[in-house]
């Protein structure tokens, strides 16, 4: 009865959980700036949560260092379905300048299915918002699929 409404709200209220997997903080700052008055992602319903249990979209930044790897995997497993993984910046995609380092165990695809990737070092806030908006659409599709 409410299925349609729930499907619709799936894309209107995406909550973000941010994992820093060894990032240099550049992408993290840009992600925060998305929520600031200038870009105001809250008008699309975005909200940063503090726990993976409440997240819809997991944003991963950083090149997945060996130290963070296990925790990343563990935390990703704790996110309830339907969920979306967004890789933020070039690091989780490719390893960026850290590629080949002994301390890196990337890319992110190795550990989980990535739904949206944003390139750039660092990506512009506009690009991040676009990626998140895309993720919400994927979220809605996933929810519909899960029902079937």
């Amino acid at each position: 009865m409410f299925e349609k409404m729930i499907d619709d709200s799936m894309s209107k209220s995406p909550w973000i959980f941010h994992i820093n997997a060894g990032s240099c903080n550049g992408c993290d700052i840009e992600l925060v700036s998305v929520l600031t008055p200038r870009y105001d992602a809250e008008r699309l319903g975005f909200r940063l949560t503090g726990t993976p249990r409440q997240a819809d979209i997991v944003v991963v930044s950083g090149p997945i260092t060996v130290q963070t790897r296990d925790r990343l995997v563990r935390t990703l497993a704790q996110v309830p379905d339907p969920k979306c993984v967004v890789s933020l910046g070039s690091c989780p995609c490719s390893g960026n300048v850290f590629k080949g380092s002994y301390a890196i165990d990337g890319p992110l695809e190795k550990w989980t299915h990535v739904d949206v990737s944003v390139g750039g070092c660092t990506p512009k806030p506009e690009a991040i918002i676009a990626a998140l908006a895309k993720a919400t659409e994927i979220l809605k599709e996933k929810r519909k699929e899960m029902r079937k």
Partner: protein
Amino acid sequence: MNILNHFPIMSVMVLFIGAFVNALVGRKSSAARNGVTFVAITAALVMMLALIKPIMLDGEVITYWMGNWAPVEGWAFGISLEVDALSLFFALIVTVAVFASGIYSFTYMSHDDSQVNYYTLFLMLSGSVLGLVLSGDLFNIFVMVEIMTFTAVALTAFRTNYEGALEGAFKYLVVGSLGSTSLLVGIAMVYSQLHTLNLAQLSALIPQNASNPVLLAAFAFLFMGFATKAFLFPFQPLAADAHAVAPASISLMISGVLTKCGVYGIVRLVYCLYQNWDLPFVQYLVTGFGAVSMFICVTMAFNQHNFKRLLAFHSISQVGYVITVVGLGSILGISSGLYHAMNHTIFKGLLFLTAGAVQHQTGSLDLDRLGGLSKRMPRTTILFLIGAASISGLPPFNGFASKWMIYQATFQQGMSTGNPFFILVCVVALITSVLTLASFIKVSQSVFFGQLPEEYKDVKEVPVAMRVPMWILAALCVVTGVFPNLVEKFLLLPATNAVYSASAYIDHAMGADYAAAHGVFSNGILGIPASNCWQPATWLMLLFCVTCAVAIVALLGSPNDSKKLAISACDEDAEALDAKYESFFSGEEAVYSQVGGSDLFWGFKHNWRKYFSFMHDWHSGIVNDYTLYGAVAIAFVLLACVILL
């Protein structure tokens, strides 16, 4: 002669005879031991229940003269038992608690040695307490108090090898003897003036001689004697020491029953013997002692690391509530006090029994080491939560019903007399209730919820025989909470009426018109004001309605066929841990950053750190200090009574 008239003496005797028989036959066989104990406590309970009809409903008073030694020419020399609704009210509390405690002991104590001594002492304790509340004679009250203290001390020290058992028992004995002596001195003073010890006769004579300084001094001594037995401030360290180390079934007796004797004594003293409840000084004195005990003990509970010691402080805090409203001198006050006294026995008994269950199964009472037992002992957890909700005064349990009346009583007293003192008391009572809730949250978090430590992985649920008495008490918690109207009709109204009809109490013992001849007139009461306002049954129906509505909406909206969206829980028996079901934590995997019980309310304790550290030092654990506090309190009350009354 009606057989019911013999029930008071028989119920006391059956317990004492049970103790004697038990000592004779119980040494070898546990069946004989348990059988004798069970028969004795059941008989006492049944006899008290049988008295409900004539005394509570028909308003009779039963006077029993030992050896038929009835008063001659208005002088009562014989030993008597006099049972009015007030006595019966407390006798019912006592027998129910004794029954629960006895049944619990059969399994709980089964691993101890020399159990025959335990049951002998236990039955003597029960008999003495019952004798105290039924007695019609001041000196017998003293004798019963002594037997009670004595057996309670012996039972506290029963597990001599338990850490601190002897120490707690010794402190209880030494400082308790101060209270007993105070009682004895008070009795001597009363006798020296009036040459009688019969309660009924004294009730007629004392109000006539109200300005006699010796009687006023006697009032101070008697009040402090009973206050010691109720463990009011400054005697609360004793209670904490004794409760914490006694076996759980005895902690129930000490907290649920022995303190009630103190309450009974104070009610009798103020409302019946001296009938000075309407004097402002007495109101300040009694209410002040109650309020101070209530607040100090609840804050002390924040410092505790031991489950039962924490419960012990709460026990005194709740007795503080009772004494506070008893001191108000209003009808609403006394009825709410009696109600809370009854409820306190029920829920605190339940809590001590659950603490005993935890101790029985895990061998520990340390709040910092226990945790996560709700997985292993789910039934005990439910029972504990019922008890905790009751003591914290959450609706719809019984604690709320009585606390609600307590707030009404204190506030009405404050407003109708225009006295800010009672408003302050009302605020203290309300805050105490929140603090009580906080410390029970602490217990539930650090014992039953949170993570299960490795060493308690194989803990089992307690046996059924121990759960039965807990369920009885839990059921009473709910029943007396949901139907306050019935409690009021069958128990509170008659008891309150008895409190206010001293003349009926006097006349029945001393012959008609004795009270009127001595200028004691009292008419009893017609009803309890402001009752019937809190209707839990309506509220529960409301709750049920709304729950149904929510459930219907949830059913309509639930996904029709998808399994993935349903609730997913981890497989308990799976060997490999699935990361999905692990708790979220961002630190090292191995370290569970569990918040220790005593650090749980840091934000509160930090602001009050000076107070807490002062109180910690004040409860020094040295027996001399505790004696000093007691002696100073007695001296203070004595001076105040003689100067101000």
